[in-house]
């Protein structure tokens, strides 16, 4: 069995093991989830270290029917996202340790990790689509079973919206395969082979279908309306996986599939895409400013951050694409930390409105420290990870080889987005932690973080600092593979 097969099968086996262990009690399932989560992270780390991201490993089986073949490959881009998946999965297990959840909870997270890993590994578009869709089912149950008050509605809405995008993507993929077949006479879903032959008149429609499919996931304004509900209603760990990894599937799909398959359209449509990306950055930030619910605010901030990533990805310049990819990792870490902190707050006070707290810094100073740290990373303070990613994205757009894209308007919109980020994040931080307590404040019910929670956040903050101070090792992991894709 190829090591890459092990990589996606291992968490799936873990999910099954959790369900079996659930028969011996909830503790057993939880320990099982921790063991398999750690093993999965260990495996991902080992493969990354052994290959160094420089060489790529792959697994290929004999072609099956309909031109489908079992093709997996892992370059630096895939590996960095799989590392993020495995890391956040482990963090989620640790963060939900005190929850008295049934075995299904732990199994759903491992199944999700398995499907996500598959998405990042697959190089056959049929496999890619199967893994892509398979991520929906565990997340549907995570939101619907373990979410907050409005969870049922949010779960169904999440599934329907993203499925709508996926169906369009599937039709586009079928049309692509059929078009290639009529040109070459060969049925194939192999991404590398599909890059070669021309597509013909259906090209723009196929590209549009792919863009819509990936765009719902990112999400690109105006396809974003599922996101605030899903992120707000999901349990804290669910929001971490949702924002941390699942949103990245859309951008990953653009980098891996849509843009390289249609380089000509990618260039000619780039100004429109960049316009949408800039809109994302500004609109998401403006929406975040209007929120009174802390979790919803962070959800909208994700839309803004993903706008930055998209700006880098469509720039066509290697540092921009690599910056977009790096910013995906950064956003996973910082937003993960923020969602966890809101989750910890909610566990204690059962409230998450901005006006429900005040002067929390005095009562829970450690929480205030970690929250402040993550907020600063999120708004792009130099020295922390967010700055590096945003800088690379903006630099990519400024040096874009595509005409029109290097117009100042996009960079300026990005800069406005950066400013707005400070304008929504800092007042929120101030309202919760520093402003005087209002009459309805529940701050007195909030004990400070315990050792487990502190360790989780120390890990996340250390990563923010590491990427912020020394991004070279991460860029070295990602950039060669991006150059490989766009060669």
């Amino acid at each position: 069995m190829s090591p890459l097969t092990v990589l996606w099968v291992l968490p799936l086996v873990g999910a099954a093991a959790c369900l079996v262990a659930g028969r011996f009690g909830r503790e057993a399932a939880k320990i099982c989830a921790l063991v398999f989560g750690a093993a999965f992270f260990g495996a991902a780390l080992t493969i990354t270290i052994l290959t160094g991201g420089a060489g790529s490993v792959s697994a290929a089986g004999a072609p099956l029917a309909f031109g489908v073949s079992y093709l997996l490959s892992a370059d630096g881009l895939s590996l960095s996202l799989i590392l993020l998946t495995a890391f956040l999965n482990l963090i989620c297990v640790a963060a939900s340790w005190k929850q008295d959840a049934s075995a299904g909870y732990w199994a759903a997270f491992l199944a999700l990790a398995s499907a996500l890993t598959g998405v990042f590994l697959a190089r056959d578009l049929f496999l890619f689509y199967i893994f892509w869709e398979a991520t929906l089912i565990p997340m549907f149950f995570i939101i619907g079973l373990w979410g907050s008050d409005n969870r049922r509605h949010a779960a169904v809405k999440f599934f329907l919206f993203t499925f709508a995008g996926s169906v369009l993507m599937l039709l586009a993929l079928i049309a692509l395969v059929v078009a290639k077949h009529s040109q070459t006479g060969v049925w194939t879903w192999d991404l590398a082979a599909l890059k070669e032959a021309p597509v013909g008149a259906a090209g723009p429609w196929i590209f549009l279908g792919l863009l819509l499919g990936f765009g719902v996931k990112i999400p690109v304004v105006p396809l974003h309306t599922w996101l605030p509900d899903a992120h707000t209603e999901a349990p804290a760990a669910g929001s971490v996986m949702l924002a941390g990894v699942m949103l990245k599937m859309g951008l990953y799909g653009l980098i891996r599939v849509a843009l390289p398959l249609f380089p000509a359209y990618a260039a000619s449509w780039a100004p429109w895409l960049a316009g949408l990306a800039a809109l994302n950055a500004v609109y998401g930030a403006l929406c975040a400013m209007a929120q009174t619910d802390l979790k919803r605010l962070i959800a909208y901030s994700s839309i803004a951050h993903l706008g930055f990533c998209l700006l880098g990805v469509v720039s066509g310049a290697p540092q921009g694409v690599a910056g977009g990819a790096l910013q995906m990792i950064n956003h996973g870490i910082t937003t993960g930390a923020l969602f966890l902190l809101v989750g910890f707050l909610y566990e204690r006070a059962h409230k998450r409105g901005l006006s429900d707290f005040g002067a929390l810094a005095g009562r829970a100073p450690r929480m205030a420290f970690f929250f402040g740290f993550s907020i600063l990373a999120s708004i792009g303070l130099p020295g922390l990870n967010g700055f590096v990613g945003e800088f690379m994205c903006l630099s990519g757009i400024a040096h874009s080889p595509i005409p029109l894209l290097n117009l100042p308007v996009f960079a300026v919109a990005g800069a406005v987005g950066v400013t707005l980020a400070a304008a929504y994040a800092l007042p929120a931080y101030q309202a919760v932690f520093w402003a005087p307590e209002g009459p309805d404040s529940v701050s007195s019910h909030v004990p400070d973080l315990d050792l487990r929670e502190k360790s989780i956040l120390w890990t996340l903050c250390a990563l923010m600092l590491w990427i912020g101070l020394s991004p070279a090792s991460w860029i070295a992991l990602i950039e060669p593979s991006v150059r490989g894709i766009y060669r």
Partner: protein
Amino acid sequence: MSALSLLAPQCVLAAGVLCALGLGLFRRPSAVAVRVVALAVPLAALLVLRYAAPAELPPLLVVDVKSLFWQLAIILGALPLAYMASGDDVETALFLGSVLGMSLLTVAGNLPMLFVALEFMSLPAYLLVARAGEGDGAKRLEAAVKYFFAGALSGALFLLGMALYYAQTRSLGPTTLPLGPQGQAGVALMAAAALFKIGAVPLHWWLPDVYEAASPEVSGFLSTAMKSAAVLFLMRITALAPDPVFAAVLPGIGALTALVGAFLALRQERLQRLLAYSSLAHAGLLILGVGAWLALGRDAAAAASLVFYLAVYALLSNGAFLFIRASGVTTLRELRGYAARRPALAAAFAVLLFSLAGVPPNGGFVAKLLIFWQAVRASLAVPVVLAAASALVSLAYYLGMIRAMYFEDASGAAPAEGPSRAGLAVLICALGALILGAAPLLLNGFTAGVWK
């Protein structure tokens, strides 16, 4: 191999009908055993006959490997009923007679034979709707009468169409002559008869009432085995007309049926009626598939996609109807909180629902993918997008059922549960749906060459 041995499935089925009728003479009839044997033997025979050379008994019967695959789909659809229904010997004879009719339809060589097969499979089905099941017999009787009138109308249309077709072409089978207006009208009428049987919009009015009133097993049988036979019937008829009219009209009808079925299912509260409309949505996709098959010049791969879809759907729809029998749940309200009551059965039903919705990884997804694929190959862009929209709408009610089972709290007393063997059948269907997700990729050798 002689032609008669290729007809082994039909011979065994006919023997089964006679056996079932004779069982009444004995004190302890075990009709279930007769049913299971009468279906299991043909099933085994089909797997062997796949490797036999084709044969013809002109002009009545044509037995080729393709017809064997259709019989496989039909028998897969009939198996759960064989396993489930009561030990009544008359019902057994009716049921096996209906399956025999369907199986004859797959090998019918000309139009009169097709008509005989059509009536042979339909007449026992009306009686099954009226007879099988317990509880309110009057409602079933009403549904059976409605079904009978729809069927009689369909038969009359077919005869009229056949007469017109024969009047112009002097042929009871395919012809090389160009069809005039008379012949075309004949084919159109016969195709309408087939669309009636499938339940295509706007000829679907009988279908929800019948599926709702009949016992769940019979509804499962009608929605699967009967639908397989009806789709094949439609293909046989439309193949008579080489001109592209049908290829242009059928995808539209299919997309319309899929949309109407999906939207009407959204508003249903009773599970059996909901599944009836959902079966309409699936029928729409199948009609789209037939349209693609015609547009591609009766392409073999498109026919294979249809057979695969029907084989998968046989498991999914039967499993879903049997869930109603196994759980005793009849409405969405009663479905609430079901996952906490019977986790294994609820999980199996959820797998079936995800599969019906076409969410990978499972058989339902591959089946839907194949139909979309053929339709895209046939450049049917608009119908495909409409069908995809219908798939999205259907997802809403499938998710609604899963939501009721898993996310809502139980309200009211638990309904009386059905026999445990029904629960087992649901589990088997769910497992089969998962396995069939990988089967088309792995069964390459078994199907290779057949559809060239």
